[in-house]
Protein backbone atom coordinates (compact mmCIF):
# COMPACT_ATOMS: atom_id res chain seq x y z
CA UNK A 1 0.00 0.00 0.00
CA UNK A 2 1.36 3.34 -0.93
CA UNK A 3 0.14 6.78 -0.03
CA UNK A 4 0.91 10.20 -1.46
CA UNK A 5 2.28 12.88 0.84
CA UNK A 6 0.19 15.90 1.65
CA UNK A 7 2.60 18.43 0.15
CA UNK A 8 2.71 19.59 -3.48
CA UNK A 9 3.59 16.54 -5.50
CA UNK A 10 4.65 15.79 -9.05
CA UNK A 11 3.28 12.58 -10.52
CA UNK A 12 4.34 11.01 -13.77
CA UNK A 13 2.45 8.08 -15.29
CA UNK A 14 3.93 5.93 -18.06
CA UNK A 15 2.47 3.17 -20.18
CA UNK A 16 4.66 1.02 -22.43
CA UNK A 17 2.65 -1.33 -24.63
CA UNK A 18 2.82 -2.94 -28.00
CA UNK A 19 1.21 0.06 -29.69
CA UNK A 20 3.61 2.61 -28.33
CA UNK A 21 4.50 4.72 -25.34
CA UNK A 22 2.29 7.11 -23.39
CA UNK A 23 3.53 9.60 -20.83
CA UNK A 24 1.63 12.03 -18.65
CA UNK A 25 2.79 14.42 -15.93
CA UNK A 26 0.72 16.37 -13.44
CA UNK A 27 1.12 18.34 -10.23
CA UNK A 28 -1.09 17.77 -7.18
CA UNK A 29 -1.24 20.37 -4.46
CA UNK A 30 -2.04 19.81 -0.78
CA UNK A 31 -5.74 20.46 -1.39
CA UNK A 32 -5.99 17.73 -4.03
CA UNK A 33 -6.21 20.04 -6.99
CA UNK A 34 -4.40 18.63 -10.02
CA UNK A 35 -2.70 20.57 -12.80
CA UNK A 36 -1.67 18.90 -16.04
CA UNK A 37 1.96 19.59 -16.98
CA UNK A 38 2.33 17.42 -20.06
CA UNK A 39 0.69 14.61 -22.00
CA UNK A 40 2.50 12.77 -24.79
CA UNK A 41 2.10 9.64 -26.83
CA UNK A 42 4.18 8.10 -29.60
CA UNK A 43 3.78 4.98 -31.64
CA UNK A 44 6.81 2.73 -31.89
CA UNK A 45 7.05 0.60 -34.98
CA UNK A 46 9.48 -1.88 -33.46
CA UNK A 47 7.38 -2.34 -30.36
CA UNK A 48 9.23 -5.49 -29.35
CA UNK A 49 12.59 -3.76 -29.56
CA UNK A 50 13.52 -2.62 -26.06
CA UNK A 51 16.09 -0.15 -27.34
CA UNK A 52 13.54 1.62 -29.51
CA UNK A 53 11.06 1.88 -26.68
CA UNK A 54 13.78 3.17 -24.35
CA UNK A 55 14.91 5.77 -26.85
CA UNK A 56 11.41 7.03 -27.52
CA UNK A 57 10.56 7.16 -23.80
CA UNK A 58 13.80 8.97 -22.98
CA UNK A 59 13.06 11.64 -25.59
CA UNK A 60 9.57 12.09 -24.16
CA UNK A 61 10.92 12.32 -20.59
CA UNK A 62 13.48 14.94 -21.59
CA UNK A 63 10.73 17.05 -23.09
CA UNK A 64 8.70 17.10 -19.87
CA UNK A 65 8.49 20.54 -18.26
CA UNK A 66 9.59 19.31 -14.83
CA UNK A 67 11.59 16.38 -13.42
CA UNK A 68 9.58 13.14 -13.15
CA UNK A 69 9.05 12.95 -9.36
CA UNK A 70 6.77 10.05 -8.32
CA UNK A 71 6.47 7.73 -11.32
CA UNK A 72 3.80 5.08 -11.77
CA UNK A 73 4.04 2.46 -14.47
CA UNK A 74 0.89 0.85 -15.86
CA UNK A 75 0.33 -2.76 -16.84
CA UNK A 76 -2.50 -3.89 -19.02
CA UNK A 77 -4.95 -6.59 -18.03
CA UNK A 78 -3.90 -8.68 -21.01
CA UNK A 79 -0.44 -9.01 -19.49
CA UNK A 80 -1.59 -10.62 -16.23
CA UNK A 81 -3.49 -13.59 -14.93
CA UNK A 82 -6.33 -12.91 -12.52
CA UNK A 83 -7.95 -15.30 -10.10
CA UNK A 84 -10.68 -14.93 -7.49
CA UNK A 85 -10.05 -16.96 -4.37
CA UNK A 86 -11.69 -17.45 -1.01
CA UNK A 87 -9.02 -17.84 1.64
CA UNK A 88 -9.55 -18.78 5.30
CA UNK A 89 -7.79 -15.80 6.82
CA UNK A 90 -8.01 -12.08 7.22
CA UNK A 91 -4.34 -11.33 7.78
CA UNK A 92 -2.81 -9.65 4.67
CA UNK A 93 0.48 -11.58 4.96
CA UNK A 94 -1.35 -14.87 5.36
CA UNK A 95 -3.60 -14.06 2.41
CA UNK A 96 -0.50 -13.39 0.30
CA UNK A 97 1.11 -16.69 1.27
CA UNK A 98 -2.11 -18.69 0.79
CA UNK A 99 -2.72 -17.12 -2.59
CA UNK A 100 0.79 -18.04 -3.75
CA UNK A 101 0.31 -21.56 -2.53
CA UNK A 102 -3.01 -21.98 -4.29
CA UNK A 103 -1.84 -20.38 -7.51
CA UNK A 104 1.25 -22.55 -7.77
CA UNK A 105 0.81 -25.16 -10.45
CA UNK A 106 -2.05 -23.36 -12.19
CA UNK A 107 0.14 -20.72 -13.77
CA UNK A 108 1.91 -20.94 -17.12
CA UNK A 109 5.23 -20.23 -15.32
CA UNK A 110 6.77 -21.04 -11.98
CA UNK A 111 5.90 -19.07 -8.91
CA UNK A 112 9.49 -17.76 -8.73
CA UNK A 113 8.96 -16.22 -12.16
CA UNK A 114 5.88 -14.35 -10.94
CA UNK A 115 5.08 -11.07 -9.32
CA UNK A 116 1.88 -11.32 -7.32
CA UNK A 117 -0.49 -8.74 -5.92
CA UNK A 118 -3.36 -9.77 -3.66
CA UNK A 119 -6.29 -7.45 -3.10
CA UNK A 120 -8.89 -8.35 -0.44
CA UNK A 121 -12.40 -7.84 -1.78
CA UNK A 122 -14.32 -8.48 1.37
CA UNK A 123 -15.44 -11.20 3.78
CA UNK A 124 -17.28 -14.22 2.54
CA UNK A 125 -18.52 -16.03 5.60
CA UNK A 126 -15.45 -16.92 7.61
CA UNK A 127 -13.17 -16.55 4.61
CA UNK A 128 -11.94 -13.57 2.67
CA UNK A 129 -12.62 -13.08 -1.00
CA UNK A 130 -9.47 -11.90 -2.76
CA UNK A 131 -8.49 -10.81 -6.22
CA UNK A 132 -5.11 -12.24 -7.16
CA UNK A 133 -3.20 -10.65 -10.01
CA UNK A 134 -0.13 -12.45 -11.29
CA UNK A 135 2.33 -11.05 -13.80
CA UNK A 136 5.29 -12.66 -15.46
CA UNK A 137 8.36 -11.25 -13.72
CA UNK A 138 10.39 -10.69 -16.92
CA UNK A 139 7.57 -8.47 -18.25
CA UNK A 140 7.61 -6.34 -15.13
CA UNK A 141 11.40 -6.23 -15.09
CA UNK A 142 11.40 -5.22 -18.75
CA UNK A 143 9.10 -2.31 -17.96
CA UNK A 144 11.31 -1.29 -15.02
CA UNK A 145 14.44 -1.58 -17.14
CA UNK A 146 13.02 0.55 -19.97
CA UNK A 147 11.95 3.20 -17.49
CA UNK A 148 15.30 3.20 -15.66
CA UNK A 149 17.20 3.67 -18.87
CA UNK A 150 14.89 6.53 -19.72
CA UNK A 151 15.71 8.11 -16.31
CA UNK A 152 12.38 7.18 -14.75
CA UNK A 153 12.38 5.55 -11.34
CA UNK A 154 9.15 3.61 -10.90
CA UNK A 155 7.62 3.80 -7.44
CA UNK A 156 4.78 1.42 -8.29
CA UNK A 157 3.34 -0.63 -11.13
CA UNK A 158 -0.43 -0.19 -11.20
CA UNK A 159 -3.28 -1.74 -13.11
CA UNK A 160 -4.47 0.20 -16.16
CA UNK A 161 -7.97 -1.14 -15.61
CA UNK A 162 -8.10 0.17 -12.06
CA UNK A 163 -6.68 3.52 -13.20
CA UNK A 164 -9.36 3.82 -15.87
CA UNK A 165 -12.03 3.26 -13.23
CA UNK A 166 -10.48 6.00 -11.09
CA UNK A 167 -10.58 8.31 -14.05
CA UNK A 168 -14.24 7.60 -14.68
CA UNK A 169 -14.93 8.24 -11.02
CA UNK A 170 -13.04 11.56 -11.13
CA UNK A 171 -15.21 12.68 -14.03
CA UNK A 172 -18.26 12.23 -11.78
CA UNK A 173 -17.34 14.49 -8.85
CA UNK A 174 -20.84 14.22 -7.33
CA UNK A 175 -19.86 10.75 -6.11
CA UNK A 176 -22.67 9.09 -8.01
CA UNK A 177 -20.47 6.09 -8.66
CA UNK A 178 -19.35 5.55 -5.11
CA UNK A 179 -22.13 3.43 -3.65
CA UNK A 180 -23.17 1.26 -6.54
CA UNK A 181 -21.41 -1.44 -8.50
CA UNK A 182 -20.52 -0.08 -11.91
CA UNK A 183 -18.66 -1.33 -14.90
CA UNK A 184 -15.88 0.81 -16.32
CA UNK A 185 -15.09 0.12 -19.96
CA UNK A 186 -12.08 1.39 -21.90
CA UNK A 187 -12.38 0.76 -25.66
CA UNK A 188 -9.17 0.63 -27.72
CA UNK A 189 -8.47 -0.19 -31.36
CA UNK A 190 -9.29 -3.88 -31.10
CA UNK A 191 -9.45 -4.66 -27.41
CA UNK A 192 -11.45 -3.73 -24.37
CA UNK A 193 -10.41 -3.30 -20.75
CA UNK A 194 -13.23 -3.91 -18.28
CA UNK A 195 -13.34 -3.42 -14.54
CA UNK A 196 -16.11 -3.67 -11.99
CA UNK A 197 -15.94 -1.23 -9.08
CA UNK A 198 -17.65 -1.63 -5.75
CA UNK A 199 -17.71 1.42 -3.47
CA UNK A 200 -15.06 2.93 -5.68
CA UNK A 201 -12.66 -0.03 -5.37
CA UNK A 202 -11.78 -2.46 -8.15
CA UNK A 203 -13.25 -5.89 -7.51
CA UNK A 204 -13.27 -7.52 -10.92
CA UNK A 205 -11.19 -7.04 -14.04
CA UNK A 206 -11.23 -8.58 -17.50
CA UNK A 207 -9.45 -8.01 -20.77
CA UNK A 208 -10.95 -8.87 -24.14
CA UNK A 209 -8.76 -8.88 -27.24
CA UNK A 210 -9.67 -8.89 -30.93
CA UNK A 211 -13.08 -7.36 -30.55
CA UNK A 212 -15.00 -6.42 -33.63
CA UNK A 213 -15.71 -2.82 -34.34
CA UNK A 214 -19.48 -2.76 -34.32
CA UNK A 215 -21.95 -2.19 -31.56
CA UNK A 216 -23.17 -5.77 -31.41
CA UNK A 217 -19.70 -7.04 -30.64
CA UNK A 218 -19.29 -4.46 -27.94
CA UNK A 219 -22.64 -5.29 -26.38
CA UNK A 220 -21.84 -9.00 -26.45
CA UNK A 221 -18.51 -8.39 -24.79
CA UNK A 222 -20.10 -6.33 -22.05
CA UNK A 223 -22.81 -8.94 -21.52
CA UNK A 224 -20.21 -11.70 -21.14
CA UNK A 225 -18.27 -9.63 -18.67
CA UNK A 226 -21.35 -8.93 -16.57
CA UNK A 227 -22.21 -12.61 -16.50
CA UNK A 228 -18.64 -13.60 -15.60
CA UNK A 229 -18.66 -11.05 -12.77
CA UNK A 230 -21.95 -12.35 -11.44
CA UNK A 231 -20.62 -15.89 -11.64
CA UNK A 232 -17.66 -15.01 -9.44
CA UNK A 233 -20.09 -13.63 -6.84
CA UNK A 234 -17.75 -10.89 -5.71
CA UNK A 235 -20.48 -8.28 -5.21
CA UNK A 236 -23.97 -6.95 -6.07
CA UNK A 237 -25.34 -6.57 -9.57
CA UNK A 238 -23.90 -3.91 -11.79
CA UNK A 239 -26.05 -0.80 -11.81
CA UNK A 240 -24.49 1.27 -14.58
CA UNK A 241 -21.77 1.33 -17.17
CA UNK A 242 -19.19 4.03 -17.88
CA UNK A 243 -17.37 3.92 -21.13
CA UNK A 244 -14.39 5.80 -22.62
CA UNK A 245 -11.82 5.44 -25.37
CA UNK A 246 -12.28 4.88 -29.13
CA UNK A 247 -15.92 5.80 -29.37
CA UNK A 248 -15.58 8.05 -32.41
CA UNK A 249 -16.01 5.14 -34.83
CA UNK A 250 -19.42 4.29 -33.41
CA UNK A 251 -22.50 5.54 -35.10
CA UNK A 252 -24.63 8.23 -33.52
CA UNK A 253 -27.07 6.88 -30.96
CA UNK A 254 -24.90 3.86 -30.32
CA UNK A 255 -24.77 4.39 -26.60
CA UNK A 256 -28.57 4.67 -26.37
CA UNK A 257 -28.91 1.39 -28.20
CA UNK A 258 -26.29 -0.11 -25.92
CA UNK A 259 -28.39 0.89 -22.96
CA UNK A 260 -31.31 -0.91 -24.44
CA UNK A 261 -29.25 -4.02 -25.19
CA UNK A 262 -27.75 -4.19 -21.70
CA UNK A 263 -30.70 -2.88 -19.77
CA UNK A 264 -28.31 -0.63 -17.86
CA UNK A 265 -27.52 3.08 -17.83
CA UNK A 266 -24.48 3.79 -19.99
CA UNK A 267 -22.48 6.99 -19.46
CA UNK A 268 -19.82 8.17 -21.77
CA UNK A 269 -16.71 9.62 -20.11
CA UNK A 270 -15.63 12.44 -22.32
CA UNK A 271 -12.60 14.27 -21.03
CA UNK A 272 -13.54 17.30 -23.04
CA UNK A 273 -16.84 17.64 -21.21
CA UNK A 274 -16.64 16.64 -17.59
CA UNK A 275 -13.07 16.12 -16.58
CA UNK A 276 -11.19 18.15 -14.00
CA UNK A 277 -8.89 19.27 -16.82
CA UNK A 278 -11.49 20.50 -19.22
CA UNK A 279 -9.55 23.61 -20.19
CA UNK A 280 -6.19 21.86 -20.39
CA UNK A 281 -7.50 18.91 -22.35
CA UNK A 282 -9.35 21.17 -24.69
CA UNK A 283 -5.99 22.47 -25.76
CA UNK A 284 -4.17 19.16 -25.67
CA UNK A 285 -6.87 17.18 -27.47
CA UNK A 286 -6.21 19.17 -30.60
CA UNK A 287 -2.59 18.08 -30.63
CA UNK A 288 -2.97 14.31 -30.27
CA UNK A 289 -4.57 11.71 -32.47
CA UNK A 290 -8.08 10.80 -31.37
CA UNK A 291 -7.23 7.10 -31.37
CA UNK A 292 -4.99 7.43 -28.33
CA UNK A 293 -6.72 7.32 -24.95
CA UNK A 294 -5.12 8.74 -21.80
CA UNK A 295 -7.85 7.55 -19.44
CA UNK A 296 -5.52 5.16 -17.57
CA UNK A 297 -2.78 7.75 -17.13
CA UNK A 298 -5.28 10.42 -16.08
CA UNK A 299 -6.73 8.03 -13.52
CA UNK A 300 -3.31 7.52 -11.95
CA UNK A 301 -2.72 11.22 -11.38
CA UNK A 302 -6.29 11.94 -10.23
CA UNK A 303 -6.74 9.04 -7.80
CA UNK A 304 -7.18 10.52 -4.32
CA UNK A 305 -6.66 7.24 -2.49
CA UNK A 306 -4.60 4.16 -2.88
CA UNK A 307 -4.26 2.12 -6.02
CA UNK A 308 -4.86 -1.32 -4.57
CA UNK A 309 -2.89 -3.38 -7.06
CA UNK A 310 0.87 -2.92 -7.19
CA UNK A 311 3.14 -5.26 -9.13
CA UNK A 312 6.45 -3.55 -8.37
CA UNK A 313 8.71 -6.37 -7.11
CA UNK A 314 9.86 -6.21 -3.51
CA UNK A 315 13.52 -6.43 -4.44
CA UNK A 316 13.09 -3.37 -6.68
CA UNK A 317 11.61 -1.46 -3.76
CA UNK A 318 14.46 -2.55 -1.53
CA UNK A 319 17.05 -1.54 -4.10
CA UNK A 320 15.36 1.83 -4.63
CA UNK A 321 15.25 2.39 -0.87
CA UNK A 322 18.92 1.54 -0.55
CA UNK A 323 19.84 3.86 -3.41
CA UNK A 324 17.76 6.58 -1.80
CA UNK A 325 19.59 6.10 1.49
CA UNK A 326 22.96 6.30 -0.26
CA UNK A 327 21.83 9.33 -2.23
CA UNK A 328 20.71 11.09 0.92
CA UNK A 329 23.90 9.99 2.63
CA UNK A 330 25.94 11.52 -0.16
CA UNK A 331 23.90 14.71 0.03
CA UNK A 332 24.38 14.77 3.79
CA UNK A 333 28.10 14.21 3.40
CA UNK A 334 28.32 16.92 0.78
CA UNK A 335 26.35 19.28 3.00
CA UNK A 336 28.56 18.45 5.94
CA UNK A 337 31.70 18.94 3.85
CA UNK A 338 30.36 22.25 2.58
CA UNK A 339 29.50 23.34 6.10
CA UNK A 340 32.92 22.36 7.38
CA UNK A 341 34.56 24.13 4.46
CA UNK A 342 32.60 27.30 5.08
CA UNK A 343 33.35 27.06 8.78
CA UNK A 344 37.04 26.45 8.14
CA UNK A 345 37.23 29.35 5.72
CA UNK A 346 35.44 31.61 8.19
CA UNK A 347 37.70 30.52 11.04
CA UNK A 348 40.76 30.95 8.85
CA UNK A 349 39.71 34.43 7.79
CA UNK A 350 38.90 35.35 11.36
CA UNK A 351 42.27 34.14 12.60
CA UNK A 352 44.02 35.92 9.76
CA UNK A 353 42.22 39.14 10.72
CA UNK A 354 43.19 38.65 14.36
CA UNK A 355 46.80 37.99 13.34
CA UNK A 356 46.94 41.10 11.17
CA UNK A 357 45.27 43.19 13.88
CA UNK A 358 47.81 41.94 16.41
CA UNK A 359 50.71 42.76 14.13
CA UNK A 360 49.28 46.17 13.42
CA UNK A 361 48.84 46.88 17.12
CA UNK A 362 52.41 45.76 17.83
CA UNK A 363 53.73 48.01 15.07
CA UNK A 364 51.77 50.94 16.41
CA UNK A 365 53.11 50.34 19.92
CA UNK A 366 56.67 50.25 18.57
CA UNK A 367 56.08 53.43 16.62
CA UNK A 368 54.79 55.25 19.68
CA UNK A 369 57.35 53.79 22.07
CA UNK A 370 59.83 56.67 21.80
CA UNK A 371 57.12 59.24 22.37
CA UNK A 372 55.76 57.22 25.26
CA UNK A 373 59.19 57.05 26.85
CA UNK A 374 59.50 60.83 26.72
CA UNK A 375 56.13 61.31 28.36
CA UNK A 376 56.88 58.75 31.03
CA UNK A 377 60.22 60.37 31.79
CA UNK A 378 58.54 63.72 32.22
CA UNK A 379 55.99 62.13 34.54
CA UNK A 380 58.84 60.58 36.54
CA UNK A 381 60.56 63.96 36.67
CA UNK A 382 57.40 65.54 38.05
CA UNK A 383 57.11 62.84 40.66
CA UNK A 384 60.81 63.06 41.55
CA UNK A 385 60.65 66.83 41.91
CA UNK A 386 57.60 66.52 44.12
CA UNK A 387 59.29 63.92 46.30
CA UNK A 388 62.44 66.00 46.49
CA UNK A 389 60.44 69.09 47.49
CA UNK A 390 58.75 67.15 50.26
CA UNK A 391 62.05 65.81 51.53
CA UNK A 392 63.74 69.21 51.33
CA UNK A 393 60.86 70.78 53.24
CA UNK A 394 61.26 68.16 55.97
CA UNK A 395 64.97 68.78 56.04
CA UNK A 396 64.38 72.51 56.53
CA UNK A 397 61.95 71.69 59.35
CA UNK A 398 64.55 69.44 60.93
CA UNK A 399 67.18 72.17 60.71
CA UNK A 400 64.70 74.64 62.10
CA UNK A 401 63.89 72.38 65.02
CA UNK A 402 67.55 71.75 65.76
CA UNK A 403 68.31 75.44 65.73
CA UNK A 404 65.13 76.44 67.54
CA UNK A 405 65.77 74.31 70.60
CA UNK A 406 69.43 75.28 70.97
CA UNK A 407 69.93 76.45 74.57
CA UNK A 408 71.98 79.55 75.12
CA UNK A 409 75.64 78.79 74.98
CA UNK A 410 75.32 75.80 72.69
CA UNK A 411 76.88 76.36 69.27
CA UNK A 412 75.69 74.33 66.31
CA UNK A 413 78.56 73.19 64.16
CA UNK A 414 77.26 70.60 61.69
CA UNK A 415 73.98 69.29 60.40
CA UNK A 416 74.03 66.42 57.98
CA UNK A 417 71.73 63.78 56.52
CA UNK A 418 72.76 60.25 57.10
CA UNK A 419 70.86 57.95 54.80
CA UNK A 420 67.24 58.79 54.10
CA UNK A 421 65.99 59.80 57.54
CA UNK A 422 68.71 60.35 60.15
CA UNK A 423 69.91 63.80 60.99
CA UNK A 424 73.39 63.99 62.43
CA UNK A 425 74.03 67.00 64.60
CA UNK A 426 77.36 68.19 66.01
CA UNK A 427 77.58 71.06 68.44
CA UNK A 428 79.57 72.45 71.34
CA UNK A 429 77.98 72.98 74.74
CA UNK A 430 79.38 74.57 77.89
CA UNK A 431 78.66 71.49 79.88
CA UNK A 432 76.79 68.24 79.93
CA UNK A 433 73.82 69.85 81.61
CA UNK A 434 73.20 71.94 78.55
CA UNK A 435 73.48 68.85 76.40
CA UNK A 436 70.90 67.12 78.53
CA UNK A 437 68.61 70.13 78.39
CA UNK A 438 69.05 70.34 74.63
CA UNK A 439 68.32 66.65 74.24
CA UNK A 440 65.20 67.00 76.39
CA UNK A 441 64.04 69.96 74.36
CA UNK A 442 64.51 68.00 71.14
CA UNK A 443 62.67 65.00 72.53
CA UNK A 444 59.86 67.30 73.49
CA UNK A 445 59.48 68.29 69.86
CA UNK A 446 56.87 66.11 68.16
CA UNK A 447 59.03 66.14 65.05
CA UNK A 448 61.52 63.61 66.38
CA UNK A 449 60.99 59.95 67.00
CA UNK A 450 64.36 59.34 68.64
CA UNK A 451 67.11 61.58 69.91
CA UNK A 452 70.31 59.72 70.57
CA UNK A 453 73.60 61.04 71.91
CA UNK A 454 76.35 59.40 69.97
CA UNK A 455 79.38 61.01 71.47
CA UNK A 456 80.44 63.70 73.91
CA UNK A 457 84.02 64.90 74.40
CA UNK A 458 85.30 67.56 76.64
CA UNK A 459 87.62 70.01 75.01
CA UNK A 460 90.71 70.15 77.12
CA UNK A 461 91.56 73.75 76.22
CA UNK A 462 88.25 75.47 76.91
CA UNK A 463 86.48 72.89 79.00
CA UNK A 464 83.51 72.83 76.61
CA UNK A 465 81.90 69.66 75.51
CA UNK A 466 81.76 68.63 71.89
CA UNK A 467 78.87 66.27 71.26
CA UNK A 468 77.22 64.44 68.42
CA UNK A 469 73.55 63.46 68.25
CA UNK A 470 71.56 61.36 65.88
CA UNK A 471 68.00 62.49 65.40
CA UNK A 472 65.42 60.26 63.74
CA UNK A 473 62.32 62.09 62.56
CA UNK A 474 58.89 60.58 62.85
CA UNK A 475 57.60 59.02 59.59
Amino acid at each position, binding site marked *: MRSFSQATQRITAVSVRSGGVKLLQARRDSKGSVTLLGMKARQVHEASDEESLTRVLREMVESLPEPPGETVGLFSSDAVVTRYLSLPSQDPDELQAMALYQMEGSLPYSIEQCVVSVKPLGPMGEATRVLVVVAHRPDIERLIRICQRANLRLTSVASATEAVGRWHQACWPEGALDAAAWLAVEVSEDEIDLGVFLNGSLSYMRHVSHVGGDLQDLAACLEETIQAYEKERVGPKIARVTISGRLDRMAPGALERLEVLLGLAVHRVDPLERSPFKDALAVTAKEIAPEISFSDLLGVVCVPRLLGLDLLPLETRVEQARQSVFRQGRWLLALLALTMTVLAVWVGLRMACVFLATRQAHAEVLTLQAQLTRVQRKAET*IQAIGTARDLYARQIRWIGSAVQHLPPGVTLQFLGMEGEGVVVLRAVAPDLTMITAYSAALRGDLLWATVALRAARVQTEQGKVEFEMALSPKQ
Partner: protein
Amino acid sequence: MSERVSSRMVLIAVVWLLTVMGLVWLGQGGVGLWNRQTEELMAVRERLSRVHGWLAVEQEVAAREAEAMGPLARVGRSELMWASLEGLQALAGAQGLFLNDLRPSETAGGGRRPGTIRLDARLEGPLAGIGKFLQQIPDKMPGVRLESLQFLPQEKGQVQALLRLSLPAWDRS
Protein backbone atom coordinates in the same frame (compact mmCIF):
# COMPACT_ATOMS: atom_id res chain seq x y z
CA MET B 1 26.31 -8.74 -3.29
CA SER B 2 25.77 -8.66 0.44
CA GLU B 3 29.50 -9.11 1.05
CA ARG B 4 30.31 -6.22 -1.27
CA VAL B 5 27.69 -4.06 0.35
CA SER B 6 28.94 -5.01 3.79
CA SER B 7 32.60 -4.20 3.02
CA ARG B 8 31.50 -0.97 1.39
CA MET B 9 29.53 0.02 4.44
CA VAL B 10 32.45 -0.88 6.68
CA LEU B 11 34.70 1.30 4.55
CA ILE B 12 32.23 4.16 4.73
CA ALA B 13 31.97 3.74 8.49
CA VAL B 14 35.76 3.78 8.87
CA VAL B 15 36.06 6.88 6.70
CA TRP B 16 33.37 8.57 8.75
CA LEU B 17 35.09 7.66 12.00
CA LEU B 18 38.48 8.89 10.85
CA THR B 19 36.91 12.07 9.52
CA VAL B 20 35.16 12.74 12.81
CA MET B 21 38.31 12.03 14.82
CA GLY B 22 40.34 14.29 12.57
CA LEU B 23 37.76 17.03 12.85
CA VAL B 24 37.72 16.74 16.64
CA TRP B 25 41.53 16.93 16.79
CA LEU B 26 41.58 19.88 14.43
CA GLY B 27 38.83 21.50 16.41
CA GLN B 28 40.73 21.20 19.68
CA GLY B 29 43.90 22.57 18.17
CA GLY B 30 41.99 25.30 16.41
CA VAL B 31 40.19 26.33 19.57
CA GLY B 32 43.49 26.52 21.46
CA LEU B 33 45.11 28.56 18.74
CA TRP B 34 42.06 30.80 18.54
CA ASN B 35 42.18 31.43 22.28
CA ARG B 36 45.89 32.21 22.26
CA GLN B 37 45.49 34.59 19.33
CA THR B 38 42.57 36.33 20.96
CA GLU B 39 44.39 36.70 24.26
CA GLU B 40 47.45 38.09 22.52
CA LEU B 41 45.35 40.58 20.60
CA MET B 42 43.55 41.68 23.76
CA ALA B 43 46.87 42.10 25.58
CA VAL B 44 48.47 44.17 22.84
CA ARG B 45 45.33 46.25 22.48
CA GLU B 46 45.33 46.92 26.20
CA ARG B 47 48.96 47.94 25.99
CA LEU B 48 48.20 50.18 23.02
CA SER B 49 45.32 51.68 24.97
CA ARG B 50 47.66 52.53 27.81
CA VAL B 51 50.09 54.09 25.35
CA HIS B 52 47.31 56.17 23.87
CA GLY B 53 46.28 57.13 27.38
CA TRP B 54 49.75 58.41 28.11
CA LEU B 55 49.97 60.24 24.81
CA ALA B 56 46.58 61.82 25.39
CA VAL B 57 47.97 63.62 28.44
CA GLU B 58 51.33 64.38 26.86
CA GLN B 59 50.76 68.11 26.68
CA GLU B 60 49.43 68.25 30.19
CA VAL B 61 52.40 66.27 31.48
CA ALA B 62 54.78 68.53 29.56
CA ALA B 63 53.12 71.61 31.05
CA ARG B 64 53.30 70.22 34.57
CA GLU B 65 56.88 69.18 34.04
CA ALA B 66 57.82 72.66 32.82
CA GLU B 67 56.02 74.14 35.80
CA ALA B 68 57.81 71.79 38.18
CA MET B 69 61.19 72.45 36.60
CA GLY B 70 60.70 76.18 37.04
CA PRO B 71 63.73 78.19 35.97
CA LEU B 72 65.46 75.02 34.76
CA ALA B 73 62.61 74.16 32.36
CA ARG B 74 64.45 75.39 29.29
CA VAL B 75 67.93 74.48 30.45
CA GLY B 76 69.69 71.69 28.66
CA ARG B 77 71.63 68.93 30.27
CA SER B 78 75.03 70.49 29.66
CA GLU B 79 73.98 73.87 31.10
CA LEU B 80 72.22 72.56 34.16
CA MET B 81 75.19 73.05 36.48
CA TRP B 82 75.81 76.63 35.40
CA ALA B 83 72.15 77.48 35.69
CA SER B 84 72.11 76.03 39.20
CA LEU B 85 75.15 78.08 40.23
CA GLU B 86 73.62 81.21 38.81
CA GLY B 87 70.46 80.52 40.75
CA LEU B 88 72.35 80.10 43.99
CA GLN B 89 74.30 83.27 43.35
CA ALA B 90 71.09 85.19 42.82
CA LEU B 91 69.56 83.81 46.00
CA ALA B 92 72.65 84.55 48.06
CA GLY B 93 72.81 88.07 46.77
CA ALA B 94 69.16 88.66 47.58
CA GLN B 95 69.72 87.61 51.20
CA GLY B 96 72.90 89.54 51.63
CA LEU B 97 75.00 86.41 51.74
CA PHE B 98 78.38 85.83 50.24
CA LEU B 99 78.65 82.66 48.21
CA ASN B 100 82.16 81.45 47.80
CA ASP B 101 84.35 78.43 47.21
CA LEU B 102 82.00 76.70 44.83
CA ARG B 103 82.98 73.16 43.95
CA PRO B 104 80.58 71.36 41.67
CA SER B 105 80.87 67.70 40.72
CA GLU B 106 78.82 65.29 38.71
CA THR B 107 78.09 61.59 38.73
CA ALA B 108 76.51 59.63 35.89
CA GLY B 109 73.20 57.88 36.21
CA GLY B 110 72.17 54.39 35.12
CA GLY B 111 69.37 53.40 32.73
CA ARG B 112 66.46 55.74 33.14
CA ARG B 113 67.87 57.23 36.38
CA PRO B 114 69.49 60.63 35.80
CA GLY B 115 72.95 61.45 37.04
CA THR B 116 73.62 63.70 40.05
CA ILE B 117 75.16 67.16 40.25
CA ARG B 118 76.74 67.89 43.60
CA LEU B 119 77.47 71.43 44.74
CA ASP B 120 79.74 72.33 47.67
CA ALA B 121 79.67 76.01 48.62
CA ARG B 122 80.63 78.28 51.45
CA LEU B 123 78.10 80.80 52.69
CA GLU B 124 78.86 83.83 54.81
CA GLY B 125 76.35 86.10 56.34
CA PRO B 126 73.69 86.52 59.02
CA LEU B 127 71.99 83.39 60.29
CA ALA B 128 68.54 84.65 59.38
CA GLY B 129 69.68 85.21 55.83
CA ILE B 130 71.08 81.73 55.64
CA GLY B 131 67.77 80.36 56.87
CA LYS B 132 65.81 82.18 54.15
CA PHE B 133 68.40 81.23 51.58
CA LEU B 134 67.98 77.59 52.45
CA GLN B 135 64.19 77.85 52.24
CA GLN B 136 64.28 79.36 48.73
CA ILE B 137 66.81 77.00 47.16
CA PRO B 138 64.11 74.58 45.78
CA ASP B 139 62.62 77.47 43.78
CA LYS B 140 65.87 77.87 41.88
CA MET B 141 66.90 74.21 41.85
CA PRO B 142 63.83 71.94 41.56
CA GLY B 143 64.57 68.50 42.96
CA VAL B 144 67.45 69.66 45.12
CA ARG B 145 68.47 67.71 48.25
CA LEU B 146 70.31 69.09 51.22
CA GLU B 147 73.15 66.68 51.90
CA SER B 148 74.86 68.53 54.75
CA LEU B 149 75.19 71.92 56.43
CA GLN B 150 78.24 72.69 58.50
CA PHE B 151 78.53 75.83 60.57
CA LEU B 152 81.90 77.43 61.14
CA PRO B 153 82.48 79.74 64.07
CA GLN B 154 82.38 83.38 63.15
CA GLU B 155 82.27 86.66 64.99
CA LYS B 156 79.92 89.57 65.23
CA GLY B 157 76.76 87.67 64.45
CA GLN B 158 77.99 86.46 61.13
CA VAL B 159 77.72 82.78 60.29
CA GLN B 160 79.82 80.81 57.89
CA ALA B 161 78.34 77.60 56.67
CA LEU B 162 79.56 74.89 54.36
CA LEU B 163 76.68 73.73 52.25
CA ARG B 164 76.45 70.51 50.21
CA LEU B 165 73.57 70.19 47.81
CA SER B 166 72.72 67.51 45.27
CA LEU B 167 70.52 67.85 42.20
CA PRO B 168 69.36 65.25 39.62
CA ALA B 169 70.98 65.94 36.27
CA TRP B 170 67.71 66.08 34.32
CA ASP B 171 68.22 65.10 30.71
CA ARG B 172 65.46 66.90 28.89
CA SER B 173 66.52 66.05 25.39
